[in-house]
Every structure is written in C-alpha cells, then in structure tokens.
C-alpha cells in the first residue's frame, strides 16, 4: 500500500543544482547561498543555452523578412508564445502579449484598458500588500481620470481580509488589482475568490503574478481573472521579458499602448489601421531572445513539475520558519496559513541592513529593505525587514547557513 507521502512528487535537488552554473561560485571566499530569489532567480543552463542557440543559429528580425533566418526567428518567437500560453493556462495564444515584465504589463492595462474607461467617482480597489508596480500605475491613471484608489486591509497574519475586501467592493469599483503572491510576506492570496466577487459586481481583475510564476501551477483561465501579468526573470528566465495575459474580448477592445512597427496593418499619414492583439501591443522589434529564454524557463519548470517544486519549497519554508523563529529576538513578518517560500523577519535591536551585510560576509544573499512595498511596511509600522526567499535549488543546509549567519549577527550586536 502506498502512502500519501510516497505519492508526493519529489525533486532531485542535487541534480537541479548542477543545472545552475552560478551556484558553484563563491562569495567572499565562501560558497554562495543565494536566498534572494523573490528579487530574481538564477538561470539554469537550459535557459542560457536556448538564448545562445537562438543568437548563434536563428537570429534575424521577426515577421517581416522573406529569407530563411527571418522564418527561423519568427518560428522561435511565436513558438515561445505557444509555450508561454500553454504554461499560463491560456485558452488562446493570441491572448498572450510579450512585454518587458510585470511592471510594463500592469502599465499597459492601466493606460490602454483602464484610462479610457475610468472617470471621476470610479474606484480602483487594491490590497495593502501590493508591490509598488501594482500601485503606481494605478495612481497615474487615477490622476489622469479622477478615479480614486481604495485599499483593502490585511488580517494579523498578512492575509487579505476577504470580508473587508468585499465591504470595499462598491458599485463604483471598476478595477480590482492584487498580487497572486506577496513579494514581501509570501502570502498566497485567495485570487479565485476575489475574482469571483469582483465579477459579481462587474469589476475587472488585474492579477500581479510576478511572485506566483516560480512557485505555482498557473491557470489564468481557471482563476477567473481578466488580466494576469508575469515576469520571466523571477521564474528562472531572462530579465527584460514578461507576458500579459488578457481575456480576448478585452484585448480586442483596447487601443494600442505604444505606436511603431509590428503593431500596424497599414499606415498612411491620414491614419493607421492597427493589427489585432497581440501584435497591436508589441510595437517595435520585440525581445526575441528574451521570449525564447522565457519559454525555455517555463519548459524547465514544466519538466520538473510545479507540484514537485512546490513540495520541496514547502519543506524548505517549514524548516526555515522553524529554525529562524527559534533564534532569540526574531519576529516573523507574515505568517499566513497559505504562503509561498518567502520568509520575512525582524531581528530585535538590529537594523535589517546590518543583517544583510553581515550575512553577505558569510556568503548568504538575502534582501533587506521595504521590498518595494512601502504602504505595506507603513501599515505594519516597520521600515524594513530581512527577507530570505527560497527557490527549487535551495537546500536545508543553506538554511542552516542562514541560521548560523543570524547567530553571528546576534553575537556581534549582543
């Protein structure tokens, strides 16, 4: 008889680690312990090789050329769109727009979808834990249209308070913006429930999936959202590329975001006929190699299996939570029941910046600061936290190195 434990998908972490060349490097004479994955993850050789092969063997400009390489480049770029669409759970590849990253995706929705539709009295409902990239684009559009930003608070664990959220959904709520996973706290938000509530009130949902992509099996159609934004670089892909998924009928009704080549059907000085989505939103020569690298990263995740990755990361998070919480003077920040592998904490009497520097001398890379979520930090009454965030290639031994480093900090500041 097999037990539930035996049925869990597992990950051979030592094999995975060999895929990431940078993990073999040293920092200040010590083996690198990279725990800043929520800022950006490291890249496996499969992604690096895909980008190199593209430049070595397939590069030309896309969509226009009639020559052989132009065809190879176009196939690589549009093939990457197929992979990304499949990985995101999109029903139609034309619903996937390549962008520079999550930030650009949200700005695109704010300017191209929201701006023409919003007016004075309309409301944009956000949560308290949003990253600046899911706040500032909405502030800009609020200034431009007279719409108002409304904020839904968190409970004591750092989870969205659904009742409070629902209470703030009003007939004036036109847009609901929220993170799938909090970069600062690790909280996994109840996105499907939020989307359902928003849909009942006729509000459009925009989900910041930047932190979800490396940890969760994505299913944009199943979530019931209207827009979903991701970056490649937090999910083992290259920087400078990401994707916006949008429901087809919404994208079809949106004006272009930027003007230029690639996004037109015909141009004359009297007027221009725009291409359909997604080309309408991809002005200029796109980041072809980036798209290829992003697809390679998603292929890598799919080959390992998101369930196996999640199981491993969950184990790391549980272990790290236990070990770090046991250190005298540590206060965990963000203790929601449903969390991705992010551990934010404070160390009594020591500023997060000093924690970060001292850990660095031990070769341990963590993030310290406000994590681009100042309204969240203000609501918690703190200026900064130290944050360790775990990826599929991290190990319990690396968490032990983190804990040893934190003990060193306490020793120094005792």
């Amino acid at each position, binding site marked *: 008889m097999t037990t539930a434990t035996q049925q869990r998908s597992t990950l051979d972490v030592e094999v995975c680690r060999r895929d990431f060349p940078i993990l073999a490097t040293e920092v200040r004479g010590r083996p690198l312990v990279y725990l800043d994955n929520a800022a950006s993850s490291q890249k496996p050789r499969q992604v690096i090789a895909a980008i190199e092969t593209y430049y070595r063997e397939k590069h030309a400009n896309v969509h226009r050329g009639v020559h052989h390489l132009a065809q190879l480049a176009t196939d690589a770029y549009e093939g990457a769109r197929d992979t990304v669409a499949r990985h995101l759970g999109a029903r139609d590849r034309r619903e996937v727009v390549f962008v520079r990253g999550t930030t650009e995706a949200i700005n695109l929705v704010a300017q191209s979808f929201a701006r023409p539709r919003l007016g004075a009295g309309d409301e944009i409902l956000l949560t308290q834990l949003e990253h600046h990239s899911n706040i500032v684009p909405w502030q800009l559009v609020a200034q431009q249209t007279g719409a108002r930003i409304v904020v839904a608070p968190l409970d004591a664990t750092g989870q969205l308070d659904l009742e409070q959220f629902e209470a703030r959904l009003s007939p004036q709520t036109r847009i609901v913006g929220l993170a799938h996973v909090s970069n600062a706290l690790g909280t996994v938000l109840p996105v499907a429930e939020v989307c359902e509530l928003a849909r009942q009130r006729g509000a459009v949902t925009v989900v910041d999936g930047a932190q979800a992509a490396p940890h969760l099996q994505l299913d944009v159609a199943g979530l019931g959202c209207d827009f979903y934004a991701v970056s490649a670089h937090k999910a083992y892909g290259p920087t400078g590329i990401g994707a916006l998924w949008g429901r087809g009928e919404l994208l079809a009704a949106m004006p272009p975001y930027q003007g230029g080549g690639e996004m037109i059907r015909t141009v004359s000085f009297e007027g221009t006929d725009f291409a359909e989505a997604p080309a309408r939103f991809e002005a200029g020569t796109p980041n072809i190699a980036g798209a290829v690298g992003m697809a390679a990263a998603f292929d890598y995740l799919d080959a390992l299996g998101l369930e196996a990755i999640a199981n491993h990361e969950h184990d790391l998070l549980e272990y790290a939570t236990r070990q770090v919480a046991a250190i005298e003077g540590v206060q965990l920040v963000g203790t929601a029941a449903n969390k991705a592998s992010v551990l934010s904490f404070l160390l009594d009497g020591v*500023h997060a*910046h000093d924690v970060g*520097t*001292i850990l660095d*001398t031990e070769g341990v890379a963590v993030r310290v600061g406000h994590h681009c979520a100042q309204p969240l*930090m203000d609501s918690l009454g703190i*200026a900064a936290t130290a944050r360790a965030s775990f990826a599929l290639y991290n190990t319990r031994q690396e968490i032990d190195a983190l804990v040893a480093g934190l003990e060193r900090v306490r020793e*120094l*500041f005792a």
Partner: protein
Amino acid sequence: MSDLRSLYQEIILDHYKRPRHRGVAAEANREAEGYNPLCGDKVRVTLSVRDGRIEDVAFDGEGCAISTASASLMSEALAGLEVEEARQLFERFHRLLTGDAVADEEELGKLIALSGVREYPMRVKCATLAWHTLQAALDGTDQAVSTE
C-alpha cells in the same frame, strides 16, 4: 570574522547602541532632513551656528548601525568647528569612504573607524546620510536631501 570586524568595530557598535548627541541641538537655528530610499532610513540634523562656528549639533531618526554611528560620530566631531572646517571634514571623510584617500587618523580622529565601509560600496550611502543632511542644513536648503 576579520573583515566583519573591520566594518563593525567596537566603537561603531557602541555609538549605535548609545548614540551621542541624539535629539535637537540647543538653540538650533539650522536644520535639514535626510532620507535614504534604499533602506527607508531617515535622519534630522539640527545645528546652532553662531558667528560662523558650530556651537551644537544633534541628530534624530531611525537607521542602521552604520548610519547611526556615523551620525553620532559626526555630531561629536563637529561641535566647536568653524562651518568651513566642518565642510572640509566632510570632504576628507567622503574621500576616506570612496577609497581615494589614505586614512589619516590625525585629520579624521574617531571617524577613521568607518573606513571599513569602503569595502562595502552599497553601504557608503548609510555612512554619508547624516553628512549630506548636515551639508543641506549648512546650505540652508529647504528640500529634504535624498541619497539617491
């Protein structure tokens, strides 16, 4: 531990845990606020300047060990200096941190303890926040200074 100790020397930890000149300068007539957006640290420096001489200095705010110790050591070093001498001291201190000056204990006194910061370029802004704020207070700039 040795490189760590060169950054976090006893004197720095001491000034972090027991900062001197914390609060508001007596009969303050100059002040400025400084902000490091990188870490959210904020500092307010108040001065009383009479006849071109700094009679009292104090600082207030929240910061890391490096920025707090630097503000505390700065306040100690400045009291009684001519304004021009204070500016020159900042210049020498800045050169010490950015690495193109030999550490001269005679010129810098206890401030020399912060020379370990030059091995950590990301932290230079922590060590200079109070000093930039001092400069703004001396210049009478109304705008809060930012290290960015």
